[in-house]
């Protein structure tokens, strides 16, 4: 179920095309997930992993995102050392965490900290879907709650980029409670007059979409991002009907009144800095 969120959304059952058979040298070239065109990896990175041909927004790592938004050298990371334990003693969980830590060079699926965007100081959290599918367990909940508390202390806006398959199954109900913990933190921040901006990137589902991701003062998304609570397959099984292709996309959510705006990645920094500037005030 969860895994489906991360595979390409297929419109048709397709046979491998001639194009996809082309041997792509690892590391040098990158194939667009949207249109299958092949680009130099460098070229794709320069365009912030947005396909120059079809505009498909590929996932960014947490640090690529930070580099794309923050004034150079301004970002200071918070709570880098917080990582997942194994509170339920779940078999094989520690190994999975260790593997992803090695793979991503992160200690957890979210990076938090502060920096300046066009000279405006902001507190920031960015999730990385390559770490346990960006799923939220205790460590992630703690980091996000602390970042929000820090934003409150320092009277600066809080911006979060979400990318998550939902709750971290291996931490059971403790993961569920992180939804409450982060949402309460946001309430406190909001009551103090803090500005919170949520930007949902592909995918933002389950417990993350049903907590902090959806309760920003502004809720944005990147084009084509999958956003929703329940998984497509389980809904199809429940209602016994085929869902439209655009179901739970950013555009679908915009149409249904759940988003303020869908923002192209190339316009992101400018819009965020404008928005932060328009809310400049001393927090109560």
């Amino acid at each position, binding site marked *: *179920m*969860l895994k489906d969120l991360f595979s390409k959304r297929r419109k048709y059952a397709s046979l491998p095309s001639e194009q996809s058979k082309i041997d792509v040298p690892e590391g040098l070239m990158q194939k667009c997930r949207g249109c299958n065109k092949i680009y130099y990896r460098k070229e794709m990175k320069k365009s912030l992993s947005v396909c120059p041909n079809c505009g498909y927004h590929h996932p960014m790592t947490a640090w690529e995102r930070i580099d794309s938004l923050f004034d150079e050298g301004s970002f200071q990371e918070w709570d880098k*050392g*917080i*990582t*997942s*334990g194994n*509170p*339920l003693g*779940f078999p094989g969980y520690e190994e999975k965490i260790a593997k992803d830590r090695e793979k991503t060079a992160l*200690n957890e699926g979210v990076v938090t900290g502060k920096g300046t965007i066009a000279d405006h100081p902001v507190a920031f959290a960015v999730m990385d879907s390559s770490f346990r599918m960006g799923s939220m*367990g*205790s*460590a992630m909940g*703690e980091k996000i*709650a602390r970042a929000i508390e820090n934003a409150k202390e320092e009277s600066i806006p809080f911006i979060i980029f979400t990318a998550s398959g939902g*709750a971290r*199954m291996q*931490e*059971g*109900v*403790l*993961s*569920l*409670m*992180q*939804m*409450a*913990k982060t*949402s*309460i*933190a*946001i*309430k*406190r921040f909001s*009551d103090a007059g803090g500005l919170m901006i949520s930007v949902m990137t592909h995918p933002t589902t*389950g*417990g993350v*979409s*049903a*907590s*902090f*991701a*959806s*309760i920003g003062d502004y809720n944005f998304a990147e084009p084509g991002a999958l*956003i*929703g*609570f*329940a*998984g497509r397959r*389980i*809904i199809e099984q*429940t*209602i016994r009907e085929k*869902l439209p292709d655009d*179901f*739970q996309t950013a555009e679908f959510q915009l149409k*249904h*009144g*759940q988003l303020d705006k869908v923002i192209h990645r190339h316009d992101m920094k400018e819009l965020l800095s404008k928005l932060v500037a328009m809310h400049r005030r001393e927090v109560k």
Partner: protein
Amino acid sequence: MNQILEFEKPIVNLREKINELKNFTENSEIDLTAEIETLEKRLAILENDIYGNLKPWDRVQMARHPMRPTTKDYIDKLFTDFIEFHGDRFFGDDEAIVAGIAYYNEMPVTVIGHQRGKDTKENIRRNFGMPHPEGYRKALRHMKQAEKFNRPIICFIDTKGAYPGRAAEERGQSEAIAKNLMEMAGLTVPIVCIVIGEGGSGGALALGVGDRILMLENSTYSVISPEGAAALLWKDAGLAQRAAETMKITSYDLKKLGIVDHIIPEPKGGAHRNLEQQAAYMDEVLKQSLANLQSSTEDELIEKRWEKYKQMGEFEII
């Protein structure tokens, strides 16, 4: 329609045998009183043995028992003059959640709870207790009203989870759940949440941010159903029994994890065996919880609520 659960079968079989012998004794010359007594002693031991050592999966079965008392059963037993109110004022009325006001020991309170049906027809009307966004929004509307009129809030949690349907997504169930979590954090009146059956995922949590979290002994509270967890983690829904153990979803597990404040004991064999007794057990804990909370100021309530949730979770620092 007193449905027998798998693990209860040895008890039921033995009881049947005892009844047979009793009938036989009554209708014949042969006196089996001594044998019956021996068997009844054995039955008592067997009952203690089985009900005293319930496995997580047994408790899952208990929590899902079709005869298990629902929110409305407890409302009838614990409160007086309950008046139900409907609608979220945006879209409709979700009968998977009931909400209203009542007296609890002469004090007006707001009562909100997931509501399963007692039969198929009612279950269809109530969508098996699985809310749509309008359910959460109705709940929040009543919570805000409780705050305005300074009434404590009592939430009964009893749902498999949020309804995984198209309409629920279109009407923003993520936002509806998230909004409740956020707003419940700031309510200036005491909130007591009681898990009475299944506490399933976000649909349960949307009524579950409170000052006291109570749980019936044989209820469960989890991020996903055991079947869902098994399918997701091991690609085999048949491993649900194992998942029920690994995922730590019983009241005892949650107490240990620091999520639940009190476990409310159940009568032997489960809440459905004796609603009267169950309600009395619940009454005792609820009364105490509310009494403890009533002495707090509004600011204290909110601050302590944050402290409570802030400490939830276990992580490491390297």
